[in-house]
């Protein structure tokens, strides 16, 4: 089954083929479950003009935020941004474009992109700035807007464990956007805490089947916590 062995040995190999002006879909929510090594690799490569699709854009100095330092990002498609000063500054300077998308619509756009559904109707955003310019259609007397799907040249994903065939599982709420991102990349790169042999993961409990995955790379993770709150 050598043709199904997706494991690569370096982040250089994992991100090979990434070029200026490409679209990259990134898993993660806040700083939870983000593909730290792939992001670092993009920074190292210096790729410019990127469109990044991710619920958030990290913080100053961590997560996707580090791609702002050398102005590698042309456009963010996100539901919530501005946890970082650099982001705010580049946005106000007009150096960065932002397409704000409701969180559930964003998740569904990625899922639809991976599933070959070019567009779907949702009530989310009807009558708001999000709905402006979009097709409206009534179903059962309620108006809905048409939202188009998203696919990327690359998807960068963080999983807990993957086997050599690319079957992945996620840990706790680090799952978040990762499974949809994994389906929506022309090339999907999954970085993992642990690589296991095929057969280790229960076939019925695989979150991302290997068919969606092109490259698997073992990573090391800082797992920075954005809001550490404890019980009193």
């Amino acid at each position, binding site marked *: 089954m050598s043709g199904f062995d997706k494991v690569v040995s370096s982040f250089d190999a994992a991100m090979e083929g990434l070029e200026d002006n490409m679209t990259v879909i990134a898993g993660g*929510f*806040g*700083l*939870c*479950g983000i593909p730290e090594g792939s992001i670092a690799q993009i920074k190292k490569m210096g790729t410019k003009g990127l469109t990044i699709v991710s*619920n958030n854009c990290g913080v100053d100095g961590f997560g996707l935020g580090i791609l702002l330092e050398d102005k590698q990002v042309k456009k963010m498609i*996100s*539901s*919530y*941004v*501005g*946890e970082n000063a650099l982001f*705010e500054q580049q*946005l*106000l300077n007009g150096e960065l474009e932002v397409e*704000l998308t*409701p*969180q*559930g*619509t964003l*998740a*569904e756009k*990625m*899922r639809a992109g991976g599933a070959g559904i070019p567009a779907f109707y*949702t*009530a*989310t*955003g*009807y*009558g*708001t*700035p*999000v709905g402006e310019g979009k097709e409206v259609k009534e179903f059962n007397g309620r108006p809905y807007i048409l939202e188009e799907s998203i696919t990327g040249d690359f998807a960068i994903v963080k999983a*807990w464990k993957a086997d050599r065939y690319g079957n992945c599982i996620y*840990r*706790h*709420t*680090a*799952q*978040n*956007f*990762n*499974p*949809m991102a994994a389906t929506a990349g022309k090339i999907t790169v999954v970085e993992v805490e642990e690589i296991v042999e095929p057969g280790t993961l229960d076939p019925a409990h695989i*979150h991302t089947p290997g068919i969606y995955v092109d490259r698997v790379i073992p990573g090391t993770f800082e*797992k*920075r*916590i*954005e*809001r*550490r*709150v*404890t*019980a*009193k």
Partner: protein
Amino acid sequence: MALTRDQIAMRVAQEFQDGNYVNLGIGIPTLAANYVPQGISVMLQSENGLLGMGPYPTEDEIDADMINAGKETVTAITGASIFSSAESFAMIRGGHVDFTVLGAFEVDVNGNIASWMIPGKLIKGMGGAMDLVAGAKNIIVTMTHADKHGNSKLLQECTLPLTGVNCITRIITDLAVMEVKDGAFYLRERAPGVSVEEIQQKTAGKLVVEGDVPEMTFA
């Protein structure tokens, strides 16, 4: 007297029924989890992908992979389930969440809500708010009745960009409980010691007062 934040949260919690699945926004809504009445259980949904959110963790329990929609470290209760954000919003959009409680800048008599964007100020995004107001069966808005300058947040028509249209049915402020229907705010309860006149004066949109309006009671 106007209610405190915790008192608003207490009053919100009185709305819950046993077995409700509830999504609580950041701020006052989150506090409501502390005041769920005796004998009532609710299960908290966190839109990043957690059903059955528990309390904040102890120092020993903290896990970077376990956070809530506010990006805070959190725990899961026994019987929780964890899933993708697409699945999470399928629940929300599909109307499976019984209650959503969230804050707002403005609400109007047609049930429109503005809660995410103030033109001229830096816009951070709507997060899941638009999905939540479009999807939940019952939405409760919690906020102060007026802003710090005394301007009413209960309007005839929202002035800020909207989060959702025709979706708000219940509002709980520091002064009152109101139902939104038929193009008006219907006053249902007053905060203890707050007069109908004061509420009337601080409500810019059409307010309907039917009969004697009872004071809220707290157990």
